[in-house]
């Protein structure tokens, strides 16, 4: 047992120090591409940390969103930025990035060090044992309609947060669209290796997304994880040069975008009319309602995330004045 604790402890220590070191390097290195690659690696280590902290749901979300989609978003943004800089003749600026750093104030690091020490002290001053809301969650699980506690919190106990959060996703997409199109990426035809890889990978991603959605009712998984894995399939297709074209502005596509938040809000309104309470799922139907909400949410999340990756507004040529 002793060696086990020792091994676990050294594992944690190594993981933690690597996280901090990686964060420091990625934020302070000169080359932006290197920073992004390190950020992806950072996301992977974060996911390991979630696993060590018994948070597999968060690990799933981090693996799919934090390391996967954000990495793809960042890489694409950097590529577009370089195209812009080449066109504008400002490429030099990026290489001399380090010289453009603002003058380092002596006070800033010192003040931040004090803040960090203070926060560290506060963290240590917390009582060593605190049940939080775990007892309340355990007591009410039977009435939640699902048997996995994180899903119960996300979709039922704190379902109102999730409702608003779906609108956060939607609003960011509307914001991205309202800024108008940036330089569009014209993909070259993929080589045979990439082509085959995509053909194999996309169905697997869709299958895994469906599995995560279904498993969410009783084990780690759920709408956000499933939606992001599904979005990854879309991102893969976009990377291969597939473009939705005018399809983006059609009503059915828009309906999929708003289905998740819309159904959630309508359910909330209907339940208020029927039961006089917002989002109070009747216990006997809670499981089905949650599954319906999660399924539509998965679709919407996937399409919104993929559209965020594409970041081109529908009809950009017509509306852009």
């Amino acid at each position: 047992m002793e060696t086990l604790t020792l091994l676990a402890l050294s594992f944690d220590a190594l993981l933690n120090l690597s996280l901090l070191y990686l964060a420091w390097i990625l934020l302070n290195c000169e080359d932006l591409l290197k920073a992004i690659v390190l950020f992806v690696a950072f996301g992977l280590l974060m996911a390991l940390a979630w696993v060590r902290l018994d948070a597999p749901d968060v690990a799933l979300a981090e693996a799919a969103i934090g390391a996967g989609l954000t990495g793809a978003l960042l890489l694409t943004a950097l590529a577009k930025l370089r195209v812009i800089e080449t066109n504008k003749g400002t490429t030099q600026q990026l290489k001399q990035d380090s010289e453009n750093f603002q003058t380092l104030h002596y006070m800033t690091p010192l003040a931040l060090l004090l803040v960090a020490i203070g926060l560290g002290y506060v963290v240590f001053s917390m009582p060593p044992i605190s049940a939080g809301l775990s007892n309340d969650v355990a007591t009410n699980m039977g009435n939640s309609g699902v048997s996995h506690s994180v899903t119960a919190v996300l979709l039922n106990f704190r379902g109102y947060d999730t409702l608003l959060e779906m609108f956060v996703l939607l609003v960011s997409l509307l914001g991205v669209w309202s800024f108008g199109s940036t330089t569009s990426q014209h993909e070259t035809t993929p080589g045979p290796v990439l082509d085959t890889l995509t053909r194999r990978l996309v169905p697997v991603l869709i299958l895994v997304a469906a599995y995560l959605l279904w498993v969410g009712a009783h084990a780690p998984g759920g709408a956000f994880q499933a939606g992001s894995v599904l979005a990854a399939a879309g991102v893969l297709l976009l990377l291969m040069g597939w473009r939705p074209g005018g399809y983006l502005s059609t009503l059915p596509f828009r309906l999929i975008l708003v289905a998740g938040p819309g159904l959630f809000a309508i359910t909330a309104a209907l339940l208020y009319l029927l039961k006089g309470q917002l989002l109070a799922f009747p216990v006997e139907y809670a499981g089905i309602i949650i599954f319906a909400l999660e399924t539509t949410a998965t679709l919407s999340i996937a399409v919104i995330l993929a559209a965020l990756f594409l970041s081109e507004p529908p009809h950009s040529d017509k509306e852009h004045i």
Partner: protein
Amino acid sequence: MQAIYFLLALFLLLNLIAGMWRVLRGPTAADRMLAAQLFGTTAVAILLIVAQATGDPALRDVALVFALLAAVTAVAFVRRAWPDEDPRHDTD
């Protein structure tokens, strides 16, 4: 038995950190990304070992998502950052 699993996991983590050295050193972006991919593979292995050690099957799902998304990131890298290595290649 548990101890062996953890020893293995620790060893893999050390491997991962060795890989980090390559990410930091480069010298080309492709070296970094390959090393980061190695990260992904090693992380999958760590997850599977920890899943075995703790008996938590959910960690296998995490490993699965890891493996899949690592492939997507790799494709994103190839499609987005690769032309950067070759100045003659025109992205637009």
